[in-house]
Protein backbone atom coordinates (compact mmCIF):
# COMPACT_ATOMS: atom_id res chain seq x y z
CA UNK A 1 0.00 0.00 0.00
CA UNK A 2 1.58 3.27 -1.13
CA UNK A 3 1.25 6.16 1.27
CA UNK A 4 1.40 9.61 -0.32
CA UNK A 5 4.72 11.39 0.05
CA UNK A 6 4.70 14.44 2.33
CA UNK A 7 4.24 17.34 -0.18
CA UNK A 8 6.21 19.65 2.07
CA UNK A 9 9.26 17.43 1.79
CA UNK A 10 8.70 16.27 -1.78
CA UNK A 11 10.26 19.39 -3.21
CA UNK A 12 13.83 19.69 -4.41
CA UNK A 13 15.07 22.54 -2.24
CA UNK A 14 13.14 21.70 0.93
CA UNK A 15 14.22 18.06 0.73
CA UNK A 16 17.85 19.13 0.19
CA UNK A 17 17.69 21.40 3.25
CA UNK A 18 16.15 18.69 5.42
CA UNK A 19 18.75 16.14 4.24
CA UNK A 20 21.56 18.52 5.21
CA UNK A 21 20.02 19.33 8.58
CA UNK A 22 19.39 15.67 9.41
CA UNK A 23 23.16 15.10 9.38
CA UNK A 24 24.19 17.96 11.66
CA UNK A 25 23.22 19.59 14.94
CA UNK A 26 22.70 23.00 13.36
CA UNK A 27 23.80 24.82 10.23
CA UNK A 28 24.18 28.43 9.15
CA UNK A 29 22.09 29.92 6.34
CA UNK A 30 25.21 30.47 4.17
CA UNK A 31 26.13 26.79 4.48
CA UNK A 32 22.65 25.71 3.34
CA UNK A 33 22.69 28.20 0.45
CA UNK A 34 26.12 27.03 -0.73
CA UNK A 35 25.39 23.31 -0.51
CA UNK A 36 21.96 23.53 -2.15
CA UNK A 37 23.21 26.04 -4.76
CA UNK A 38 20.07 28.10 -4.24
CA UNK A 39 19.44 31.83 -4.15
CA UNK A 40 19.07 33.58 -0.80
CA UNK A 41 15.52 34.64 -1.63
CA UNK A 42 14.27 31.21 -2.63
CA UNK A 43 16.00 29.55 0.31
CA UNK A 44 14.45 32.02 2.74
CA UNK A 45 10.97 31.27 1.40
CA UNK A 46 11.46 27.50 1.68
CA UNK A 47 12.97 27.74 5.17
CA UNK A 48 9.99 29.80 6.23
CA UNK A 49 7.62 27.05 4.99
CA UNK A 50 9.56 24.38 6.88
CA UNK A 51 9.57 26.49 10.03
CA UNK A 52 5.81 27.13 9.84
CA UNK A 53 5.26 23.37 9.57
CA UNK A 54 7.37 22.91 12.70
CA UNK A 55 9.98 20.88 10.82
CA UNK A 56 12.89 23.20 11.57
CA UNK A 57 13.77 25.88 14.10
CA UNK A 58 15.35 29.13 12.94
CA UNK A 59 17.42 31.33 15.22
CA UNK A 60 18.55 34.81 14.28
CA UNK A 61 21.55 36.30 16.06
CA UNK A 62 24.79 38.16 15.32
CA UNK A 63 28.31 36.91 14.60
CA UNK A 64 30.35 39.99 15.41
CA UNK A 65 28.49 42.75 13.58
CA UNK A 66 27.01 40.48 10.92
CA UNK A 67 23.54 38.98 11.22
CA UNK A 68 23.56 35.19 11.55
CA UNK A 69 20.71 32.80 10.76
CA UNK A 70 21.04 29.29 12.15
CA UNK A 71 18.71 26.39 11.38
CA UNK A 72 18.20 23.08 13.12
CA UNK A 73 15.80 20.20 12.60
CA UNK A 74 13.05 19.65 15.19
CA UNK A 75 11.66 16.36 16.53
CA UNK A 76 8.59 16.84 14.31
CA UNK A 77 10.89 17.40 11.34
CA UNK A 78 12.93 14.33 12.15
CA UNK A 79 9.82 12.16 12.36
CA UNK A 80 8.44 13.59 9.10
CA UNK A 81 11.76 12.99 7.34
CA UNK A 82 11.96 9.39 8.57
CA UNK A 83 8.40 8.73 7.40
CA UNK A 84 9.16 10.33 4.04
CA UNK A 85 12.20 8.07 3.53
CA UNK A 86 10.20 5.03 4.64
CA UNK A 87 7.43 5.82 2.12
CA UNK A 88 9.98 6.55 -0.55
CA UNK A 89 11.43 3.06 -0.14
CA UNK A 90 8.00 1.57 -0.93
CA UNK A 91 7.84 3.54 -4.17
CA UNK A 92 11.29 2.37 -5.23
CA UNK A 93 10.83 -1.29 -4.22
Amino acid sequence: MFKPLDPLLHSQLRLAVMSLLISVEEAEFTFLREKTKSTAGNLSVQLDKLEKAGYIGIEKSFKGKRPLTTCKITKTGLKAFEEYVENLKNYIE
Partner: protein
Amino acid sequence: MEKELSSKESLALITEMITKAKEETAGDGGFQLLLWGWVIALCNFGHFTLEKLGYEYPYHVWILVVPASVISFWKGFQIARKARVKSHISRVINQVWIMVFAGIVITLAFMPVIGYNQNPVILILSGLGIWTTGSLIRVNFVRAGGVLLLVAAAVGFMLPVSSQHLVSGVAMVLGYLLPGYYLKENCRERV
Protein backbone atom coordinates in the same frame (compact mmCIF):
# COMPACT_ATOMS: atom_id res chain seq x y z
CA MET B 1 8.59 26.80 -10.77
CA GLU B 2 10.09 23.88 -8.84
CA LYS B 3 11.09 20.71 -10.60
CA GLU B 4 8.90 17.65 -9.92
CA LEU B 5 10.98 14.96 -8.21
CA SER B 6 10.82 11.26 -9.03
CA SER B 7 11.36 8.73 -6.21
CA LYS B 8 14.85 7.91 -7.45
CA GLU B 9 15.77 11.58 -7.76
CA SER B 10 14.57 12.16 -4.20
CA LEU B 11 16.72 9.34 -2.89
CA ALA B 12 19.74 10.55 -4.88
CA LEU B 13 19.26 14.07 -3.55
CA ILE B 14 19.05 12.85 0.07
CA THR B 15 22.24 10.81 -0.38
CA GLU B 16 24.07 13.70 -2.05
CA MET B 17 23.17 16.18 0.69
CA ILE B 18 24.03 13.80 3.53
CA THR B 19 27.44 13.21 1.89
CA LYS B 20 28.02 16.95 1.55
CA ALA B 21 27.15 17.52 5.21
CA LYS B 22 29.43 14.65 6.23
CA GLU B 23 32.34 16.10 4.25
CA GLU B 24 31.91 19.46 5.97
CA THR B 25 31.93 17.96 9.45
CA ALA B 26 34.44 15.18 8.93
CA GLY B 27 37.73 16.76 9.76
CA ASP B 28 40.36 19.49 9.79
CA GLY B 29 42.41 18.00 6.98
CA GLY B 30 44.30 16.00 9.57
CA PHE B 31 45.85 19.23 10.94
CA GLN B 32 45.96 18.14 14.58
CA LEU B 33 47.21 14.66 13.67
CA LEU B 34 50.00 16.13 11.55
CA LEU B 35 50.96 18.78 14.10
CA TRP B 36 51.16 16.38 17.05
CA GLY B 37 52.56 13.56 14.92
CA TRP B 38 55.52 15.67 13.80
CA VAL B 39 56.14 17.32 17.17
CA ILE B 40 56.00 14.18 19.31
CA ALA B 41 57.92 12.08 16.78
CA LEU B 42 60.69 14.72 16.63
CA CYS B 43 60.76 15.01 20.43
CA ASN B 44 61.02 11.24 20.84
CA PHE B 45 63.72 10.80 18.19
CA GLY B 46 65.51 13.88 19.55
CA HIS B 47 65.40 12.59 23.13
CA PHE B 48 66.65 9.15 22.04
CA THR B 49 69.49 10.59 19.92
CA LEU B 50 70.63 13.17 22.50
CA GLU B 51 70.64 10.50 25.20
CA LYS B 52 72.75 8.18 23.03
CA LEU B 53 75.14 11.07 22.33
CA GLY B 54 75.57 11.51 26.06
CA TYR B 55 73.88 14.92 26.32
CA GLU B 56 73.13 15.65 29.96
CA TYR B 57 69.62 17.02 29.49
CA PRO B 58 68.03 15.12 26.56
CA TYR B 59 64.53 15.98 27.84
CA HIS B 60 65.10 19.65 26.91
CA VAL B 61 63.83 18.75 23.44
CA TRP B 62 60.32 18.39 24.89
CA ILE B 63 60.09 22.19 25.16
CA LEU B 64 58.70 21.94 21.59
CA VAL B 65 55.42 20.73 23.13
CA VAL B 66 54.75 24.22 24.55
CA PRO B 67 54.48 26.09 21.20
CA ALA B 68 52.72 23.04 19.71
CA SER B 69 50.03 23.23 22.43
CA VAL B 70 49.54 26.95 21.77
CA ILE B 71 49.22 26.36 18.00
CA SER B 72 46.90 23.39 18.56
CA PHE B 73 44.51 25.31 20.84
CA TRP B 74 44.63 28.43 18.65
CA LYS B 75 43.85 26.46 15.48
CA GLY B 76 41.10 24.47 17.23
CA PHE B 77 39.54 27.70 18.46
CA GLN B 78 39.74 29.29 14.99
CA ILE B 79 38.10 26.29 13.36
CA ALA B 80 35.30 26.22 15.94
CA ARG B 81 34.72 29.97 15.54
CA LYS B 82 34.56 29.81 11.74
CA ALA B 83 32.50 26.60 11.56
CA ARG B 84 29.19 27.13 9.76
CA VAL B 85 27.93 23.77 10.95
CA LYS B 86 27.80 22.17 14.37
CA SER B 87 27.70 18.41 14.43
CA HIS B 88 27.43 15.76 17.13
CA ILE B 89 30.50 14.05 15.68
CA SER B 90 32.74 17.12 15.98
CA ARG B 91 31.46 17.72 19.50
CA VAL B 92 32.18 14.13 20.61
CA ILE B 93 35.62 14.14 18.96
CA ASN B 94 36.51 17.37 20.79
CA GLN B 95 35.34 15.95 24.12
CA VAL B 96 37.33 12.73 23.61
CA TRP B 97 40.54 14.65 22.86
CA ILE B 98 40.07 16.99 25.81
CA MET B 99 39.95 13.91 28.06
CA VAL B 100 42.94 12.31 26.29
CA PHE B 101 44.88 15.56 26.82
CA ALA B 102 43.87 15.64 30.52
CA GLY B 103 44.93 11.99 30.87
CA ILE B 104 48.34 12.77 29.32
CA VAL B 105 48.86 15.75 31.65
CA ILE B 106 48.06 13.56 34.71
CA THR B 107 50.41 10.84 33.43
CA LEU B 108 53.23 13.38 32.99
CA ALA B 109 52.58 14.79 36.46
CA PHE B 110 53.10 11.34 37.99
CA MET B 111 56.08 10.20 35.89
CA PRO B 112 58.23 9.25 38.95
CA VAL B 113 55.35 7.18 40.40
CA ILE B 114 55.11 5.06 37.22
CA GLY B 115 58.90 4.69 36.96
CA TYR B 116 59.14 7.04 33.95
CA ASN B 117 57.15 4.59 31.84
CA GLN B 118 54.99 7.49 30.64
CA ASN B 119 55.58 6.86 26.93
CA PRO B 120 53.58 3.59 26.67
CA VAL B 121 50.80 5.07 28.81
CA ILE B 122 50.61 8.11 26.53
CA LEU B 123 50.53 5.80 23.50
CA ILE B 124 47.54 3.96 25.03
CA LEU B 125 45.67 7.22 25.68
CA SER B 126 46.46 8.52 22.18
CA GLY B 127 45.52 5.16 20.67
CA LEU B 128 42.08 5.38 22.30
CA GLY B 129 41.66 8.90 20.88
CA ILE B 130 42.74 7.90 17.37
CA TRP B 131 40.57 4.77 17.36
CA THR B 132 37.50 6.71 18.53
CA THR B 133 38.11 9.49 15.99
CA GLY B 134 38.54 6.95 13.19
CA SER B 135 35.33 5.18 14.21
CA LEU B 136 33.33 8.40 14.36
CA ILE B 137 34.49 9.69 10.97
CA ARG B 138 34.34 6.13 9.60
CA VAL B 139 37.87 6.01 8.26
CA ASN B 140 39.41 2.60 8.88
CA PHE B 141 42.91 3.83 8.07
CA VAL B 142 42.70 6.19 11.07
CA ARG B 143 41.30 3.42 13.30
CA ALA B 144 44.24 1.25 12.27
CA GLY B 145 46.54 4.00 13.56
CA GLY B 146 44.88 3.59 16.98
CA VAL B 147 45.53 -0.16 16.98
CA LEU B 148 49.15 0.42 16.00
CA LEU B 149 49.63 2.84 18.92
CA LEU B 150 48.31 0.23 21.37
CA VAL B 151 50.63 -2.42 19.93
CA ALA B 152 53.54 0.03 20.25
CA ALA B 153 52.54 0.64 23.89
CA ALA B 154 52.69 -3.09 24.62
CA VAL B 155 56.11 -3.30 22.92
CA GLY B 156 57.26 -0.24 24.89
CA PHE B 157 56.39 -1.82 28.24
CA MET B 158 58.70 -4.73 27.38
CA LEU B 159 61.66 -2.42 26.69
CA PRO B 160 63.83 -0.23 28.91
CA VAL B 161 62.70 3.39 29.30
CA SER B 162 65.54 4.71 27.08
CA SER B 163 64.39 2.57 24.12
CA GLN B 164 60.74 3.54 24.59
CA HIS B 165 61.46 6.91 22.96
CA LEU B 166 62.49 5.19 19.75
CA VAL B 167 59.36 2.99 19.76
CA SER B 168 57.16 6.03 20.47
CA GLY B 169 58.79 7.99 17.65
CA VAL B 170 58.14 5.22 15.14
CA ALA B 171 54.60 4.75 16.50
CA MET B 172 53.88 8.47 16.03
CA VAL B 173 55.03 8.32 12.41
CA LEU B 174 52.88 5.28 11.66
CA GLY B 175 49.91 5.93 13.95
CA TYR B 176 49.59 9.72 13.64
CA LEU B 177 51.41 10.99 10.57
CA LEU B 178 50.23 8.36 8.08
CA PRO B 179 46.52 8.75 9.03
CA GLY B 180 47.07 12.54 9.10
CA TYR B 181 48.41 12.62 5.55
CA TYR B 182 45.67 10.21 4.46
CA LEU B 183 43.00 12.65 5.75
CA LYS B 184 44.81 15.56 4.10
CA GLU B 185 44.93 13.76 0.76
CA ASN B 186 41.24 12.92 1.00
CA CYS B 187 40.35 16.62 1.35
CA ARG B 188 38.67 16.37 4.72
CA GLU B 189 38.07 19.97 5.70
CA ARG B 190 37.97 19.72 9.49
CA VAL B 191 38.07 17.28 12.59
